[in-house]
Each structure stands twice: as structure tokens, then as C-alpha cells.
């Protein structure tokens, strides 16, 4: 494998919980713990997990909306983990962009379509004013919107159209990496497919690299080359798409697979339906040992005391489990 575009090592994000008059730290939320992965240029990494599994926080750490508390994020050979905001603006912001989940809050209601799409160019002093307008019109058309509506405000567009606007904005600077945080979760199923196809086409056309965050396995399966499964801030299983879906080894992945409502069976190896009991534990008080042991149907004593390290189990297939499914 050639040098990865994005390389994440031991990434952790811990938020302090402050309370009381003096805002003393009363505890911590362990949003992301010790996550590592590589992503090749042009590839797509899907990250799946329940809400609260830390997948969004992971995305925000990569794009440096939040500064991780430990670990490193290396983008194109450069450690960007602790870059200060001015330096980030100068050299990184234009190369990594994000598409957010909710297209109703990710667009400023007071900006017109054109001004939304042009803003990134304006900020980075790309193109002259007149060229900008033409470029924006091209881009608007490319994502499947009518440039004649460029003066309209976001509320005049549907959810799917708004997500197209957000994609056009993310694309304006010709970034290399796009973090798509649940880009289709807020949309109707019919519209989801359109947006997925658009993202697909754009990836081919512009050679984009995606980190694709979703709670929906079928969406991730459609989009991704590699899939990472997260639970309570930790990486459970990371494998190429085909080997993950055909040959998952982690009990949590198994549970996720069996929960997919589908006519066609998603997991080829499904033996029986595994229904997890209980809720995901509070991330401010994660269980000791393997974080999944409280809900794992196969948990044994070792799982309760010893944190399983992420280790290779086959080529391109890593897992954090003491007793992988055979």
C-alpha cells in the first residue's frame, strides 16, 4: 500500500464534564478512545456505529473542529493534530471538507445558494469575482441543481437539494478529503440513493477520498472500500468491505449485521438473529475490560478485566476481541 492520505494513530477525545459553581471537573466523557486507521488516497472508509459510539467526534477530530486529547492525525504526511487555527486555515482547511448530517442546520438561512457556494472561494482568495460566479454556477449544475435558482435561500429547497448545496460547498475548494457525517441519514430513502450516487460520481470525477460516517450498514456497504465498526468510542473491527460483510469476526459486528432489516440477507454468515440486550453504557463511565462485555453474548471472565488490543486476524482485517467468532 502506498503512503496513506490520512493516517490516524491512537486517537482519543475526552471531554471533561464540569459542574458546580467552580466548574470543577466531575468526570470525563470518553468519546473516542485509541482509534487507529489508514486511508489511501481515493479510498473510502466507512465508519459505522450506534449513536454515541464516537463516530462523529472522530470525524470532527480529523477535520480539527475539535482538538483530540491524545493521538495523532497525519494528513498527507503532515501531522495536523496540534496545528493552530491560523496555520490550519492557511494550509489544511481547503484540503479537507465536511458534509454534515442535517442539511437544515448546516446552511445559513440568510445566505443565498450562490453566496454559500462562493464563500469558500472568497475566503481562500481563489478566482476573481466574475470567475467565481461562473465557477459557482458550474458547481451548482454539477451537483444537480438549477443555477437559475442561485439567488434563493436554503428554505426554498428540499432536504435533498439542500444536501446537494452542502456538497457543492464542500467541493468548491477541490478538497482531497471529505468527511461525510451521516450525509443521507436525514433524507428520504429515495433521495438517499440519489445523494449516494452523486457522491460516488464526484469521487470518481475529482479523485476524492471519503470518510463516510453512518449508522446505516447498508449505506456504508454501498459506499465504502474499508469499514470500521465502532462501539463506545473504540474500534471493534476494521476490514475491507467484502471481508467484513462476508466474514465478520466481532460479536458486536455480528449483532449489527443481524439487526439490518432486509429482504436479502446482508451477512452471508448469519446463523441466527443476535439481539443485544440493554443499552449502550454511558460513555462517561465505560465498563472495564472490553467495553462491549456488558452486552456481549459470548463474554467471558477475561473480557471483563482485560482490554482487547486491536490486532490483525487476517490480511486487512483487524479486530479488538479476545474470542473472535470462528
Amino acid at each position: 500500500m502506498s503512503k496513506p492520505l490520512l493516517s490516524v494513530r491512537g486517537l482519543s477525545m475526552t471531554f471533561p464534564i464540569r459542574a458546580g459553581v467552580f466548574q470543577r471537573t466531575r468526570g470525563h466523557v470518553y468519546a473516542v478512545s485509541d482509534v487507529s486507521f489508514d486511508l489511501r488516497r481515493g479510498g473510502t472508509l466507512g465508519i459505522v456505529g450506534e449513536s454515541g459510539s464516537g463516530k462523529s467526534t472522530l470525524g470532527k477530530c480529523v477535520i480539527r473542529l475539535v482538538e483530540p486529547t491524545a493521538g495523532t492525525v497525519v494528513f498527507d504526511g503532515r501531522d495536523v493534530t496540534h496545528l493552530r487555527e491560523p496555520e490550519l486555515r492557511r494550509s489544511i482547511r481547503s484540503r479537507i471538507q465536511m458534509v454534515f448530517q442535517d442539511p437544515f442546520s448546516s446552511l445559513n438561512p440568510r445566505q443565498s445558494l450562490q453566496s454559500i457556494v462562493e464563500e469558500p472561494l472568497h475566503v481562500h482568495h481563489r478566482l476573481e469575482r466574475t470567475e467565481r460566479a461562473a465557477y459557482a454556477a458550474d458547481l451548482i449544475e454539477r451537483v444537480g441543481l438549477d443555477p437559475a435558482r442561485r439567488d434563493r435561500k436554503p428554505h426554498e429547497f428540499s432536504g435533498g437539494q439542500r444536501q446537494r448545496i452542502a456538497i457543492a460547498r464542500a467541493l468548491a475548494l477541490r478538497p482531497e478529503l471529505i468527511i461525510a457525517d451521516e450525509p443521507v441519514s436525514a433524507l428520504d430513502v429515495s433521495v438517499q440513493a440519489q445523494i449516494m450516487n452523486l457522491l460516488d460520481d464526484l469521487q470518481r470525477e475529482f479523485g476524492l477520498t471519503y470518510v463516510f460516517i453512518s449508522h446505516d450498514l447498508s449505506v456504508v456497504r454501498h459506499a465504502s472500500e474499508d469499514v470500521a465498526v465502532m462501539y463506545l468510542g473504540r474500534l471493534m473491527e476494521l476490514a475491507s468491505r467484502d471481508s467484513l460483510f462476508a466474514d465478520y469476526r466481532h460479536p458486536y459486528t455480528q449483532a449489527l449485521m443481524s439487526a439490518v432489516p432486509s429482504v436479502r440477507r446482508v451477512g452471508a454468515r448469519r446463523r441466527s438473529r443476535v439481539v443485544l440486550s440493554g443499552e449502550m453504557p454511558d460513555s462517561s463511565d465505560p465498563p472495564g475490560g472490553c467495553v462491549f462485555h456488558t452486552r456481549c453474548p459470548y463474554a467471558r471472565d477475561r473480557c471483563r478485566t482485560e482490554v482487547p488490543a486491536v490486532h490483525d486476524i487476517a490480511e486487512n482485517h483487524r479486530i479488538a476481541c479476545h474470542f473472535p467468532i470462528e
Partner: protein
Amino acid sequence: MTVTQGPAGGRRRTNVNLIIGIVIIGSMALVTLVSFVYTPHDVNAMHREHRFEGPSARFLLGTDNFGRDILSRLMYGGRTAFYVGIVAVGIGIVVGTMIGGLAGYLGSWVDELFMRVMDGLLAFPGLIMALMVIAVAGPGTLNTAFAIGVMSIPGISRIARSGFLQYRSIEFVQSARTIGVRPAVIMAKHILPNVMTSLVIAGSVAFAGAILSEAGLSYLGLGVQLPDPSWGRMLREAQGHFMRTPWFTLGPGLAITLMVLGFYSLSNGIRDAIDVREAHG
């Protein structure tokens, strides 16, 4: 679609508050503007033979203890009221928004520092604060306006803070950050316009408060000084003659009441108008 849009699109309820507010403030402003070119009598001319007269064709609202025309003085006093209101609200909105905006957007120690200072300001009774400023800077129209403006900063800064705090974590602001927009531009371009409506409402309420405060200070003789006419001081001059000439107090009293009522009505009207737009926009 038709069910939800029918009532909103078909017969939207008339915004009575907004209409009342605009009519009252509009006519007060108009009368004040007219005073620049025309008043029925000279503001300070004393008609000695017509002291304490009731309303008549010549003196529509009667005359005061020096025989001056009350209507003319009321019109002229409107200038003071608007001047003090505009300066005070201007100071309050500009400084309050900057302090509250920075506190809300930056958070952490900036928030803590600014808001504790604001709490400190708020702990003083407003009038005492104003008296302090006037004691230091001396009385006068501009100083009065300044003192009242300072008084209005804490309230407005709290409103600005909550607005900026609310929008700080919204996704389009985060998106602006990932694009590389500078914090100052994010605050001015992406957050401020969305917070503006609540600031306008706060400003309108503060305007009513400023007019009341000015009247109060001037009534105590600490606000606007001679020769500038002020409704508050007119009330003070009138109180000694209340039993003899009630209409003397009626004019300035009504003017202050109308003005305050107008601005409150206006602020309610603006809020209603925005609520409707946001509910059906």
C-alpha cells in the same frame, strides 16, 4: 399541505401590536421632526399675561407657570427623548453585542470574565449607576444618555450571549470553520444576522426604558439641564402647580406614557411578526 398552509396563507392574524407601535412611534417621531422647522410658539418665549392658562385656540395644550406654550415645549422635548434614546440604545446594543457576542462565541474564561463583570454592573440599581456616572461626568443631555446606555449594556449582552452561544455549535457555523472563515467574520456574517432580530427587540425595549430613565433623572433634576426641554423636567416643574393646573402635568405625562407604550408595543409586534414568519416561512 393545504391543511397546514390554509390558515397561515389565507387569513393571517393582523399584528395589532406592530400597528399600534408603528403608529405611536411614527407620529411621535413626526411631531419631533416638525419641531425642527415649526413650533406653534417659541419654545422659551414667556407670555406673562397668559400664565397657567388652560387649553385654548392659541395655546392648544395650555401654558405653564412662566406662560410658555406647553405644546411647543412638548414637541421640543421629543428631540431630547429621541436623542437620549438613540444614543443610549446605540451604546447598549453596540457594546452589549460585542461583549455578549465574544463571551458566547469564545466561551471559557472570556465568557466567565465578561459575564461576571456584567453581573457586577447588574447588581447596582440602575438609577444609582446613572447617578454615579452623572456625579463623575456632570449632568447634561449627552452624559445622561451615556449613563443610561451603560445601564442597558448588561441586559443586552446577556441576550447577545445566549444567541451567540446557541449558534456557536450549529452546523453552518462549524461548516464555516472548516472552510476556514475567520472567527470575526463568522461572528459578524454567520451569527449576528441570525441573532439580530432578538437584538432589535431588546433594543426596542431598552428604548422604552431609556425614555423612562431619562424622564426619571430629569425629574430629579439630574438629567437634562436647561435650556434643553425635557418631559421629565416639565413634570417636575408642573408638580407644584398640579392642583391649580392639572393639564400642565397631563402633557408631559402622556407623552412619556405614549412613548414607552409605543416602544413596548413595537417590540411585541416585531416578535410576533418574526414568530409568524419562522413558523410558516
